[in-house]
């Protein structure tokens, strides 16, 4: 466990989360959410939770991003807020 790395990635996670909420384009929001999930996966690998990191890498960064992109493709990219 390297706590310096932990601090840097935790800060990046907050930036990605705020970006995913604030951006006006829903496809961009989906992609930023994928980046957020991937950084969470790195964080859990640092904390020694290898199984959780593996699950997050395949589920959070992989499949749920695909679900978001598919849903945005079937609805609209526009968002007012």
């Amino acid at each position: 466990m390297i706590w310096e790395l932990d601090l840097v990635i935790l800060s990046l996670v907050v930036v990605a989360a705020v970006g995913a909420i604030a951006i006006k384009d829903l496809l961009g929001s989906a992609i930023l959410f994928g980046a957020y999930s991937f950084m969470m996966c790195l964080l859990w690998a640092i904390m020694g939770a290898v199984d959780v990191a593996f699950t997050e890498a395949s589920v959070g960064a992989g499949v749920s991003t695909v679900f978001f992109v598919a849903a945005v493709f079937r609805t609209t990219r526009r968002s007012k807020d």
Partner: protein
Amino acid sequence: MRTLGILVAALTCALLFYAMGDFPPWADPGSAAHTHVSPRYIEKTMEETSVPNAVTAVLADYRGFDTMFETTVIFAAGVVCFFILRLPKKEGPIFRRYRHTLTGMTIRVKCTRKIPPVLEEFEMIDNLWAPHDLIIKTSCRILVPFLQLFGLYVIAHGHHSPGGGFQGGVILGASMILLAISHDLRTALARMGEKVHALLCPIGVLIYAGTGALCLVLGRDFLDYGALAGILHVDPVTARSHGILIVEIGVGLAVMATMIWIYNNISSRGEYDEGL
């Protein structure tokens, strides 16, 4: 609504910051979470189940009942997606596009919602978005079998390394989703149809619950895999390890089928004709 949101968020934030002082310092070995239940799991898992990966042993054996109902929740989510998107009847004719493979001409046909059979000279293409990229198609087609092999490895090797039914099932499902994205939804459905993944999903849950029921029939507790020793001709400790593997296969099947099911329903809006 905005002010209410900020107010509620600020209130929650203040309460949680107030409570934060009571938390033990991060990564403190002496905190309450590390001193009560988990030492027993770590010290006894090798002796009782002969599985080195403590997470897999706790997931499928000590807390097997919990995991069984998590699998049921995933199955229920797949069924709910089916009911929300697929079941409502859609009205009216729609237009489909076909490409004549010899001349490259594209025609637009008015037809019913039922997907017509595959024709020799005409190739059906998507209405919304029909890219034809040879490089992406070929590289993804080469990648898919290796992905599936890796998924099987992750399920089977979950005892000794990070992995298990959930991760392997998601990887197997992702390989079919990759096929659907790189080609089109019809290609993926020809490999694995709607009936197949709708059946595999309850079969996975049934394997899990059936293993538990088998232990019950053999005279032990529900999901006590030691009872399988007589059938598998091994000692009870190894039987627990094998029981965990059987259960992980059930979880893998259910998770794989559900991921494909949800993706197909979402990407085609429940019509199963053209996807992402």
